[in-house]
Every structure is written in C-alpha cells, then in structure tokens.
C-alpha cells in the first residue's frame, strides 16, 4: 500500500545521495585535516618529503569536498 502512494524512486534517491554525500564528504574532509596536520608536523621535524605528501593529500581532499559541494548545488539548481 505504501509503495503505491510514495515515489519510491525519489525516496531511494534521497537515501543513497544522503549516505554517499554525507558519509563520503565528511570522511574526505577528515582526510584534509589529517593531511594538513601531518604536513605541519612533518615540516617541523624537517621531513620535507612527508610535508609535501601530506600537504598535497590535504589540498586534494579539500578540493574534492569543495568541487562536490559546488556540483551538488549546481545539480539542485537545475529547474
């Protein structure tokens, strides 16, 4: 009965988008913090290679979060 009144496709879309974007993007943002934090620590210890690696990891993770956010808003605003 419920399946006949609710738009199941739309509801499933809300569920999978929420899980993918909600958990995925927060995890990637966590990676950005790990990258930034470890880059600073490596730099202080004089480990240039580590600092560059973690710095790049942090920047890429942050770029992914920003790009995904912009993509999400752009998708939403398709009227």
């Amino acid at each position, binding site marked *: 009965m*419920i399946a*006949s*009144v*609710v*738009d199941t496709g*739309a*509801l499933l*879309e*809300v*569920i999978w*988008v*929420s*899980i993918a*974007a*909600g*958990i995925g*993007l*927060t*995890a990637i*943002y*966590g*990676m*950005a*913090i*790990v990258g*930034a*934090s*470890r880059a*600073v620590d490596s730099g202080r210890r004089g480990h240039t290679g580590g600092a560059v690696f973690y710095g790049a990891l942090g920047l890429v993770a942050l770029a992914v*979060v920003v790009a995904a*956010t912009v993509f*999400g*808003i752009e*998708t*939403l*605003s398709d*009227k």
Partner: protein
Amino acid sequence: MEGDLIVVIVVATALAFDFTNGFHDTANVVATSISTRAMSPRIAVGYAAILNFAGAFLSLAVAATIANDVVDPAAVSLLAVFGGLVGAITWNLITWYFGLPSSSSHALIGGMVGAVLVAEGPSAVSFDEGILGKVMIPAVVAPILAFLVAGASILVLYKIVGRLRPRPVTVGFRAGQVLSGGLLALAHGTNDAQKTMGVITLALVANGTISQSDFYVPDWVVVSAASAIALGTYAGGWRIIKTMGSRIHKMDTAQGFAAQGAGAVVILAASKVGFPLSTTHTISGAVIGSGAAKRLSAVRWGVAGNIILAWVMTLPAAACIGALTYSVTRIFGTGAAGPMVVCALILAGTALLFVRRAQQRGIASVGDAAEVTG
C-alpha cells in the same frame, strides 16, 4: 476588488509565516556552530540569513508540491488558505513561547489540511499521494536517515582523525563548520522558503490570478519569500538555539560538522525531488545521531523526547487551529472582514506573548542581580 484585498491579506500573512519560519527554524541551523564555538552567535545568524536568502532561489520543486499535490488547488478558497496560514503561525508562536523546536513545515501543511477539510471536505485533500506519500513518509525517513548518516559519519571521522593532536582537529572542524553550517542554511532556505512560495501561488490560483493549467511561481513571490525568511532568520530565536545546541548533548567540533553535513545533504537531496521536509526534524535527528554514535548516555533523551512529542503534536494541533480559524472567518461571511478580524487578534496575541516574555526576562534579571548582590 474584495478578492484582491483578501489576496493581499493572504500574501502578507504568508510572508509573516515565512518570517516566523526563519525566526523559529533557523536557530536550529546555527545552534551547532554556536555550541561548538565555530562562530559567534551574531555572525552565525547573519551568515545563515544571507544563505537562507540565496537558497530560496535554487529550486522550485517543493513549491510545486505544496501548490499542487497536498490539496486540490481547483477546490481551495482564499479563506481556507488564510485559515491554514494562521494555524501554522499560531502553532509556531506557541512552540516558540515554550521553547519547543516543532516543525514550521508540518505546521503549515497541518494548518492547510485542517482549514481545507472544514472548508471543502475530504475530497479536496490528497491524503494518499500528497499527505502520506510526499509529507508523512519523508517526514519519518528524513530524521532517521540524518540520524544514521551523522552517526556513521562521526564514527568514520573519529577513525580518521583519532590519532591526531586535538588542537588541529578542533581548528580544522571549526573551519569545516563554516562550510557545513552554510550548506545547512542554504538547504533550509531552499526547502522552507519554497513552502511559502507554494502557498502564495496556491492563493493566486484560488483567486484566478494564475491558471491552474499554467502553473508557475512568479519572480516577485520568490524574491519576497526569500527576503521574509532571511529577515526572520536574522531576527533570531535565541531560546531555541539553547535547546538545540547544548541541551540535547554537548558537542565537539567534529560532531557539529558531521551533524550539519548530514542534515544539509538530506534536506538538499529531498528538495531536489520536491519533498517538503522539516529542517528541524532533520537537524535534530542528525544532532542526536552524532551524539548517540559517540556515547548513548551523552544524549539527554528527556529533551529529545520533548522534541519528538512536539513533532507528533504539530500536524493535528496546527490542523485544529487552521480549521478553527477558517470557521471564525466564515462567521463574517466570505469577504475580507473575517481575515482582518483574525489578523487583529493574532497581532494582539503576539504582542501579549512578547510582553510576557519580556516580563519573564525582567524578573529573571532581577533574580540574578539579587543573587549576585545578596
């Protein structure tokens, strides 16, 4: 001429509802940022107001649902729309007065359904595909989904950043909350301002200004609804901020980030498909989820229970007030006299509530001063 006067009253009432919606609901949006000290209250509220305004321009799917799918636009009268709006505003004011974060969205839908039921009968209300399919089921799914997503997110985040020093983690997530809090405000503006747009459009259809077969939301409706919710947001709702931000559980910045992120993606995804969700329900689910995932005892379940009670009561209570309002306006006939009398009563009641709140604050201040000096 009289029809146009009623349209003006209905549009003004709808924008007043939108203002109270911003005033009442958006406190929930900024509470986590304030609770974790990611932003000062003043900056958080101003930031949320700007993004609420911007969010209102993103989509019109929810407005279409409200205008077309919940009640039959061909059968609805202007007085029924007015009754529904007053039902929603009154319930918002009552829950604001008692500090309960109920749902403005469900107050609006409840009010509309109650007034239309009394005015036009059950055939004018779409109980199956409208109320059940587009309101009730998403209303149940959204907070549970936000609870689960926020809970899973915080567990994943703790795994990722658990071995780092606390200071950079706190700083990083505070910065992240600028993004997640902004997204949540944008999501609120998108979903909630559209409900007002939908109601105003419904009134314009009822008045014959817009043809039902040629449905569109006029630009002035979008701009005025965006402005009203942004102004309401800026006016704030400090009492509800306190309930949402710290009385459910004390949050760290990672929890705040996870809760806001989960709430925002659920609301934005639902807005895309036209589900009129409640920001309050969704962010409450996310806030509780982020706390429960860390430690079940960290959540003040008594406060969470009061919030759930307010949710359950919202639809029937707003429906009753909407039905009562419609009945009162009909005592004065089908003209503008009824809405004008009801507006006067609402304004007087609102003024009374504000005076009582001010008096209570005055008594509390005197009590605090006596404790300090005594």
